[in-house]
């Protein structure tokens, strides 16, 4: 989504702000701009890449920048941020949506508007509030009091060596340097300069200059926790590979070792997850509701099946934007789990707030320390995958599923859903997932050969049963996201209820044929497609063989985690098809890494 960077200090703001925008470009954007501020305000903003910007020569040591992902108004130079007031002295960048901008704009009839954006009302409102004797902070507070919607705002004004930021509903973080300070929509904006940060909370307004950062909430000055970010700037760089996505696929064994580290307790036959739900509540749960979007939704589908098997609990999985707390449920016996990599997914946040409002207990499963969702739920389970930059989620899916598989064992043991012996088997299988995934990665050459053979196919169909269904769905999503090929995933049994009509010799079928995915039955469906001339590719448990497959990828024996390992082959397949087609793999058209608008 949109990205914000701001700098006040002693160095050239132009280069620091531009670098910050490049750091943020993984979020996806369609236009970018900077404002450099000293005794004048100089702006350069354009549609397209950050590299298109012609940042003016300036000695300014205060500056703000923005990458925009269009919501109100098309991606044009005019609609790019920063926006200014009539005098051109007040520069504003904004993430989120101002819902009442029509009303506000109609009250500003004496002002001249240039863009189609909702954002532009903010500098004009500020122009009206900002007198020579008011502080910028007070003016911003007066303006945000009039705004409805969700926003993170960053403001800088001519001849004032300060930046004021405000947040309500969209993430903002401030960073502490030495003789300089930073603001950003997330820490990657300025991580190479400082790792000491404060995450702002809703309603906060912060004034930042080269020495101090002061945070206000309402009329109160407040102290917010100062935290140290453990991610290194390096981890957010492309390093060593042509695309982040391939790097992140290859990082999965390391990521999963981190996910598992210290969480498996073989002798107690449970997972040690540091959750503080009281035992009575765990026993009383009647339903676990998952809310999630995209790849996280598929991870939740996988987890729900494991929870039904091991946790002895009823589950539901709802696409977050469709969620409401439905009838016939007892909120006090319900746990609603938000699965979101970024912790900022707007749809998922809205869903978890609805659950909270209905009285359900809530838990977040996320990769991002300090993210909004972690502050809104009762308990958080971190997936510990490390930063993921490629827009297409890869290692975070594996870490989400693995973390939730640990949770299913934990819950199963707490509720008596599985025996200690069975729990131990599952934990031992989970522990073997990093090694099993490494084996799949070692066979990348086989996947490249298959990608070369099938890259020009008209459509791709992914099928599976049971735990193979979410993996089939995820495999299809990955392929369409990054290669733009038409791909569909569905439960194998559904093939002959419709999609079979689309199967031709030009539409290969990929089957998840491992343990945990009813391989023999799924193979029957794959054969139905082969009978119509389609080629069939399959991910198959190492101890079985389907001789009629055209291409077979071997999956080591790791029990219920086998479909997760099969998914690694599907990730590599999607990557190599897209790479052969020269797609912009890390930044697919129209997509953004974290979707912070509903």
């Amino acid at each position, binding site marked *: 989504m949109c990205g914000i960077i701001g700098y006040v200090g002693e160095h050239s703001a132009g280069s620091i702000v531009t670098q910050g925008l490049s750091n943020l470009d993984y979020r996806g954007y369609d236009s970018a701009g900077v404002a450099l501020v000293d005794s004048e305000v100089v702006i350069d903003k354009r549609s397209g890449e950050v590299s298109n910007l012609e940042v003016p020569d300036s000695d300014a040591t205060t500056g703000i920048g923005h990458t925009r992902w269009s919501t109100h108004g098309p991606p044009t130079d005019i609609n790019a941020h920063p926006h200014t007031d009539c005098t051109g002295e007040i520069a504003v960048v904004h993430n989120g949506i101002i819902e009442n901008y029509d009303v506000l704009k109609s009250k500003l009839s004496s002002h001249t508007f240039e863009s189609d954006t909702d954002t532009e009302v903010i500098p004009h409102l500020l122009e009206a509030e900002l007198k020579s004797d008011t502080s910028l902070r007070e003016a911003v507070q007066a303006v945000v009091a009039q705004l409805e919607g969700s926003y993170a705002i960053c403001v800088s004004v001519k001849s004032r060596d300060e930046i004021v930021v405000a947040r309500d509903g969209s993430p903002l973080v401030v960073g502490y340097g030495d003789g300089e300070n930073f603001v950003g929509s997330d820490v990657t904006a300025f991580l190479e300069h400082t790792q000491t940060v404060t995450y702002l909370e809703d309603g906060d307004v912060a004034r930042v200059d080269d020495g101090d950062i002061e945070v206000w909430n309402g009329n109160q000055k407040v102290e917010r926790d100062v935290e140290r970010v453990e991610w*290194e*700037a*390096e*981890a957010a*760089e*492309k*390093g*060593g*590979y042509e695309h982040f996505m391939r*790097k992140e696929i*290859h*990082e999965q*064994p*390391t990521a999963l*070792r*981190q996910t*598992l*580290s*210290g969480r*498996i307790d*073989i*002798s107690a036959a449970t997972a040690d997850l540091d959750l503080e739900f009281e035992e009575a509540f765990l026993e009383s749960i009647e339903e676990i509701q998952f809310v999630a979007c995209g790849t996280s939704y598929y991870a939740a589908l996988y987890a729900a099946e494991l929870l039904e098997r091991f946790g002895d609990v009823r589950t539901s999985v709802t696409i977050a934007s469709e969620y409401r707390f439905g009838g016939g449920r007892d909120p006090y016996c319900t746990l609603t789990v938000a699965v979101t990599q970024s912790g900022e997914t707007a749809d998922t946040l809205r869903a978890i707030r609805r659950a909270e409002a209905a009285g359900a207990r809530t838990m977040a499963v996320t990769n991002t320390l300090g993210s909004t969702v972690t502050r809104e739920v009762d308990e958080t389970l971190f997936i510990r995958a490390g930063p993921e930059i490629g827009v297409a989620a890869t290692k975070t899916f594996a870490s989400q599923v693995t973390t939730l598989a640990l949770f299913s064992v934990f819950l199963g043991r707490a509720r008596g859903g599985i025996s200690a012996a069975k729990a131990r088997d599952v934990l*031992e299988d989970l*522990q*073997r997932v*990093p*090694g*099993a995934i*490494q*084996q799949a*990665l*070692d066979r*990348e050459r086989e996947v490249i050969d298959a990608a070369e053979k099938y890259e020009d196919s008209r459509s791709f169909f992914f099928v599976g049963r049971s735990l193979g269904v979410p993996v089939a769905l995820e495999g299809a999503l990955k392929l369409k996201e990054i290669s733009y090929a038409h791909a569909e995933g569905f439960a194998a049994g559904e093939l002959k209820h419709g999609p079979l009509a689309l199967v031709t010799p030009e539409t290969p079928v990929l089957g998840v044929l491992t343990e945990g995915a009813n391989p023999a039955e799924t193979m029957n469906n794959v054969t139905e497609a082969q009978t119509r001339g389609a080629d069939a590719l399959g991910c198959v448990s190492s101890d079985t063989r389907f001789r009629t497959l055209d291409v077979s990828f071997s999956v*080591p024996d790791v029990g219920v985690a086998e479909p997760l390992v099969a998914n690694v082959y599907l990730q590599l397949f999607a990557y190599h098809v897209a790479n052969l087609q020269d797609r912009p793999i890390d930044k697919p058209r129209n997509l953004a890494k974290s979707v912070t608008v509903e």
Partner: protein
Amino acid sequence: MHDSEPTAVILAAGEGQRLRPLTNRRPKPMLPVAGKPILEYVIEAVAEAGISDIVLVVGYRQERIRTHFGDGTHWGLDIGYVEQRRQLGTGHALLQATEKIADPFLMLNGDRIVDASLIDMVNQALTGETQTPVISMTAVETPREYGVIQLDDADRATGIEEKPERRIDTSLINAGVYGFQPAIFEAIRDTSTSGELELTATLSEMALESPLETIEYTGEWLDVSHLWDLVEANASLVDERAHDDFDTTTHIAADVCIDPGVQCGPGAVIEGGTSVGANVSIGSNVTIANSVILPDAVIQSGSVIEDSVIGSNVSIGANTTIEGGETTVTVGESLHSEIELGAVIGDNAEIGAGVTLESGTVVGTTAVIDAGVGTGGRIGDDAYIRRA
């Protein structure tokens, strides 16, 4: 003279065939010693010598290297990559870096651990008056396994002879750290060759025309040529680290290196000279001594492992015994005696419960040995050994 620090080109494209099965799935520079790959020691020494620009020549199983080192920011370095698609010798490998080099530069082997002081000495010599290549040499006990250096009266090299079969009267061998002018690329291209393009062939030709400047080095120099060298190199580097006991029933020696996420059952004993990789699971009452355990391995209760290398994701059943001590090992056609080696188990192999492996056993990747088998010698990749 040149005003900026030179670039270091590190050759890391090789497979390391003598180290199979451990190099079936990773290049030789990525073999772990005391918790990190050999190449990481090389890169850290280069960094310690004050050099921050590194070009890695990669080829065989290069994903392992790219994933581990990325662009080098973690080490405060700028690491770039060039690819050697086919292994056609060290000279050919170096040629791949031609486009990235404009000034005098250093070259190192990615599979030999050297001290920063050697790199610094070669760098000093390179920045001096000399226009000829600078080569480094060190004394070893078995010079005939390496490139032996002939010197003239002024201690300049007049030739390098690879693995001579004749009797020799020097112990000085090529230590593998070089200082070059960009003219070396032209010299490599002009080298007459009937097969692989070896850098030492080019240097020998150059030395005939004008002897090469040499640096003699007496510090740490570790080469892993054979499987058993890995056990020894690990033991010699692990001694500066330590790990607390897991609980009161386990015993961990002072010179043991244990990565995060290792699980250890009650009564386990880990003796000195051992390193244990991430996510390894060690059962109760297991004893491990003087061994390298790669990540993700599972060792069940009561097993005893000495002087061994256990590959990544290997599983070893309960009460399996791998005996250490002196043995004789055959590699290809040559016989190596008085070798200290328990067993080397290739990645992903499955060893059943109650198996006994003789000293000097080498088990291939993904091989399976059934419970109760007693065996030894060389067991191939994907082999299945049943109880007779």
